């Protein structure tokens, strides 16, 4: 269902993800906001900082803990025109991860670029 806002206002939305997946619901439910939000034609970016980088780790298999494997949704974001995914290099490296470990195409940026992304955003969602 396409939702339109009368005003035609476009704001820079930033979704900040700092939590690991599965141990809590925040990562999963944050993605649901992103999907619904995609229909509102705002200027959307996603930032993965601290443990949030783990959300993008490849090969997640939740079959033995019986929870929903929502990580597959990241691959579908492109179809919703949500393409600006930014991962903080420091968070990635301090967790022993490389860009190659991630399941989708992202832009790895350093802390000063992440600082600028945050400062340039108009509406920031934290979960």
């Amino acid at each position: 269902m396409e939702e339109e806002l009368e005003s035609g206002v476009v704001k820079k939305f930033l979704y900040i993800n700092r939590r690991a997946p599965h141990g809590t619901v925040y990562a999963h439910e944050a993605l649901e906001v992103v999907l619904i939000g995609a229909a509102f034609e705002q200027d959307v970016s996603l930032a993965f900082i601290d443990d949030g980088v783990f959300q993008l780790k490849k090969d997640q298999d939740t079959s033995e803990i019986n929870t929903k494997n929502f990580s597959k949704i990241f691959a579908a974001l492109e179809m919703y025109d949500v393409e600006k995914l930014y991962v903080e290099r420091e968070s990635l490296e301090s967790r022993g991860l490389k860009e190659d470990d991630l399941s989708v195409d992202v832009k790895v940026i350093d802390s000063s670029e992440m600082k600028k992304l945050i400062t340039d955003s108009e509406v920031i969602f934290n979960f």
Partner: protein
Amino acid sequence: MIFGILVNEGPYQHQASDSAYLFAKAAIDEGHTIFRVFFYHDGVNNGTRLATPPQDDRHIPNRWSELANEHNIDLVLCVAAAQRRGMVDPDEMKRNKKDADNIADKFRISGLGQLIEAGVQAERLITFGD
């Protein structure tokens, strides 16, 4: 100033709902407008009609209902989060064939679009969570 408020945690477990309420009250006292308070994740549990806290403690759900009544504030529980956690209004009760509803006065259940709309229409969006 027009504010949107996002509450990500349930009553009593975290201070989030208390902080959000006190902020909302202060904003109103300063003459500002609350566009919407949106409850997400366990925050939907703030909308229960069935809480019975001890007499000498604050009644978090009722406090929100009273504030909404007095100042015409839109209190919205996210439908997806509410369904997961068993927060039910009369419509949801029929739709999902439940034998009861449990939503408190002045709360309504609606979609995440209401949160996005708050982000777009409000001048400031403040989040209270864990």
